C-alpha cells in the first residue's frame, strides 16, 4: 500500500468499496429544473448493486427508462444537492430496478453530484416482513378483541342462562368451596349467592336424611363426587332406591331434593363439582299416592276374594248341610274362578311393584333343590290331574346360595306352572338343576361365573317363532295358546324376567311350535343383591 501513489490508492478504494458509487453531472432545463443526469464515473459495485452495465457516459433517462416517472424525488434531491452542495441521505425504492437503495449524495462541485448507495432490498424485505407481522399481529389483536367481546357476550348469556335455570345449581371448587349458586338455588336454599360464594358449601348448608339426622360430610353428594370423580345421584323419587336427602333452609324448613352432582374434570384432575337439584315434594306425593293405591288395592281387592273362598270352602265341606253333585260342581267352578282372581290380583300387584321399583330383595342361604321340590309339591295335583310325566333331575350336593327364596319360588312356580299348563295330557315335563363353572356352556349361552343352572322342559304348544321376542313382554300371550287356553294373565314370564333382571341372573329359552319349550335360567352363586324396598312381591 505504501508504495502506491495516491491516485492508485484512491482508485483502489473507489473500486473496492462495498457501496456503489456514481459520479454524475446534473442537467437542468431552461427553467433550472433538474431533468436528467449523466453518469461520468461509476465503480464496480455500482454495476453489481444496480444491475446496470456500461453506465459511464450515459444519461439516466436512457439507462433507466421510466425513472423520471417512478422516482421524481431523485431528480429533485440530486438537483438540489448539485446546486446547493448540501449533502442528503435518504432511502428510496427504484421501481424499474425493483430495488431499495440507501443513498448518500453530496456535491463535489456545482452541477455535479456523487451518489453513494447500498442495496437495502433485503433489509427492506425484513422490515416489510416485520411490518406485515406487526399488521398481522394488530389484526389478530383486533380479532381477539372482537372474539373477547363475543366470549363476553356468550359468557353473560351463559351466566344469565345458569342464573335463571329452573333447577337449583351449585358450582364448587375441588375443596367444596362454593363458586356460584343460581337464582333457583338461592330461592330453594334460602341463601344468597353473595353470602355463600367462596365459603365451604358443606358448612354453609345442611342436608338431612329421612330421619332428620344431618348427613355426614363423606355422604354429601358433592363430597362424594369430588372424592370419587364420578357422578353421584341421590334418589329422585320414592320409586328409585338410594337415600332421600332433604336440604334444610336457613329458616330450618326443609324439602326433599333430587340431587345430581357431576365432578368437573380437567386433564384427568377433579377441579370442582356441579350440582343440580330440585324440590321433589310433588313427585314424592304422587309416588306416595301410587304406593297407597297399590296397598289399598291389595287390601280391598283381596278381602272380598278371601270371603268368597272361605264361604265356598265351608259350603264344600258340608258345614251348611250336604250338597248335591250339581251344587258341588257349581261351587268348584266358583272356587276355581275365585282362585284365578286371586292370582290375577297378586300378579297385577307384583307388576305394579316391579314398575314402582319398590319390591324388596332379601337374600338368605337357600337350598334350591328343597325349593324346587316344594314348588313341584304345590303343583302335584294339577300334574296328576293331567297325567303328566314329570322327571326331576336335581344334581347332588348343590351348594346353598344367597337368594331371596320368595322371588326364586316365583320364578320356579311360573316356569313349572307354564310347563304344566301348556303340555297336553300325558305329556312329559322335566325340571333340572345342576352346577356350572364360570365360562362353561349352558345350552347356547356361557355362564359368566359359577352358577346353578335351571332347566324346565315341556312338551307343550311351544312359542311361535315370530312371537318369541315378545314372550317376556307384559300381558303378552302367544296366539297359539290364546286360542287353546283363555286363563293365562300374560304376566307370569314378565314377572319372572323382572325378578331375573333384578337378581343378576339370566333367562332364555328355546322352542319349536307344537314340540314344546325349554326354559333356562342361570343363577350366579355370588347370589342376589340385597335391595331395600317398600314392598315384598306376593
Amino acid at each position, binding site marked *: 500500500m505504501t508504495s502506491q501513489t495516491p491516485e492508485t490508492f484512491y482508485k483502489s478504494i473507489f473500486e473496492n468499496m462495498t457501496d456503489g458509487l456514481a459520479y454524475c453531472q446534473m442537467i437542468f432545463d431552461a427553467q433550472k429544473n433538474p431533468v436528467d443526469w449523466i453518469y461520468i464515473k461509476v465503480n464496480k459495485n455500482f454495476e453489481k448493486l444496480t444491475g446496470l452495465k456500461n453506465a459511464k457516459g450515459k444519461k439516466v433517462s436512457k439507462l433507466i427508462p421510466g425513472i423520471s416517472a417512478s422516482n421524481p424525488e431523485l431528480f429533485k434531491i440530486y438537483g438540489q444537492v448539485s446546486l446547493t452542495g448540501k449533502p442528503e441521505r435518504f432511502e428510496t425504492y427504484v421501481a424499474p430496478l425493483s430495488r431499495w437503495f440507501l443513498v448518500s449524495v453530496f456535491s463535489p462541485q456545482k452541477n455535479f453530484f456523487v451518489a453513494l448507495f447500498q442495496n437495502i432490498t433485503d433489509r427492506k424485505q425484513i422490515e416489510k416482513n416485520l411490518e406485515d407481522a406487526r399488521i398481522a399481529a394488530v389484526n389478530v389483536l383486533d380479532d381477539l378483541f372482537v372474539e373477547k367481546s363475543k366470549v363476553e357476550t356468550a359468557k353473560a348469556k351463559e351466566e344469565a342462562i345458569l342464573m335463571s335455570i329452573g333447577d337449583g345449581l351449585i358450582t364448587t371448587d375441588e375443596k367444596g368451596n362454593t363458586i356460584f349458586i343460581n337464582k333457583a338455588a338461592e330461592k330453594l336454599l334460602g341463601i344468597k349467592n353473595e353470602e355463600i360464594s367462596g365459603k365451604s358449601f358443606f358448612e354453609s348448608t345442611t342436608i338431612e336424611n329421612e330421619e332428620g339426622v344431618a348427613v355426614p360430610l363423606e355422604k354429601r353428594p358433592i363430597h362424594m363426587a369430588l372424592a370419587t370423580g364420578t357422578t353421584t345421584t341421590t334418589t329422585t323419587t320414592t320409586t328409585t332406591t338410594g337415600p332421600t336427602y332433604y336440604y334444610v333452609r336457613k329458616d330450618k324448613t326443609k324439602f326433599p331434593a333430587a340431587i345430581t352432582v357431576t365432578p368437573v374434570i380437567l386433564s384427568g384432575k377433579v377441579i370442582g363439582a356441579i350440582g343440580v337439584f330440585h324440590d321433589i315434594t310433588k313427585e314424592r306425593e304422587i309416588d306416595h299416592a301410587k304406593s297407597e293405591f297399590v296397598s289399598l288395592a291389595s287390601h280391598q281387592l283381596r278381602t272380598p276374594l278371601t270371603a268368597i273362598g*272361605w264361604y265356598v270352602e*265351608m259350603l264344600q265341606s258340608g258345614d251348611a248341610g250336604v250338597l248335591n253333585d250339581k251344587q258341588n260342581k257349581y261351587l268348584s267352578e266358583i272356587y276355581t274362578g275365585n282362585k284365578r282372581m286371586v292370582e290375577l290380583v297378586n300378579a297385577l300387584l307384583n307388576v305394579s311393584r316391579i314398575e314402582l321399583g319398590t319390591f324388596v330383595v332379601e337374600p338368605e342361604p337357600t337350598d334350591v333343590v328343597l325349593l324346587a321340590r316344594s314348588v313341584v309339591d304345590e303343583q302335584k295335583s294339577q300334574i296328576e290331574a293331567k297325567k303328566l310325566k314329570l322327571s326331576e333331575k336335581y344334581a347332588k350336593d348343590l351348594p346353598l346360595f344367597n337368594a331371596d327364596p320368595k322371588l326364586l319360588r316365583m320364578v320356579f312356580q311360573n316356569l313349572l306352572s307354564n310347563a304344566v299348563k301348556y303340555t297336553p295330557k300325558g305329556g312329559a315335563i322335566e325340571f333340572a338343576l345342576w352346577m356350572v363353572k364360570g365360562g362353561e356352556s349352558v345350552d347356547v349361552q356361557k355362564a359368566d361365573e359359577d352358577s346353578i343352572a335351571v332347566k324346565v322342559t315341556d312338551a307343550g304348544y311351544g312359542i311361535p317363532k315370530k312371537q318369541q321376542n315378545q314372550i317376556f313382554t307384559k300381558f303378552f300371550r302367544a296366539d297359539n295358546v290364546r286360542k287353546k287356553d283363555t286363563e293365562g294373565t300374560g304376566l307370569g314370564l314378565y314377572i319372572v324376567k323382572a325378578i331375573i333382571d333384578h337378581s343378576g341372573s339370566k333367562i332364555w329359552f328355546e322352542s319349536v311350535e307344537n314340540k314344546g319349550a325349554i326354559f333356562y335360567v342361570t343363577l350366579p352363586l355370588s347370589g342376589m343383591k340385597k335391595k331395600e324396598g*317398600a314392598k*315384598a312381591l306376593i
Partner: protein
Amino acid sequence: MENKKTILIIEDERSLREALRDKLTREGFSTLEAKNGEEGLDVALREHPELILLDIVMPVMDGMTMLKQLRENAWGKNVKIIILTNLSDIEKIADSVKNEVYDYLVKTDWKLEDVVTKVRERLGE
C-alpha cells in the same frame, strides 16, 4: 263345654270375621269377636282368651298398635297370637315386632281348614 278353648277374633271385615267364627265354633272352639284394635284390646284384657287371631289393617286402632299395647299388660305379654294379613302388610309387621316370633297367615292364600290347623298347632293340641 268346660274344656273349650276361647279364641278372640279381631277382624274388621264382618264376612271374614263371621266365617272364622262359624268355622272355629264348628271345630269346637269358643269364640269372641271384636271389629277393631280398641275393642279387641278391651275384650282380650277382660276375657283372657287362649289365642287371638289379629287382623292388621283395621279402623279406629290397627292391629300393630293394639299388639303393642297388649304386650305392655302382664297377662297380654304372653298371650298367643296369630296374625292375619294381606301380605302387603308384612313389612309393617316385621318393623313392629322385630324381636318376637309370630305366626302369620295370608288370608287370601289360606283355606279355613289351614287356619284351624294353625290354631290347633299354636294351642298345642
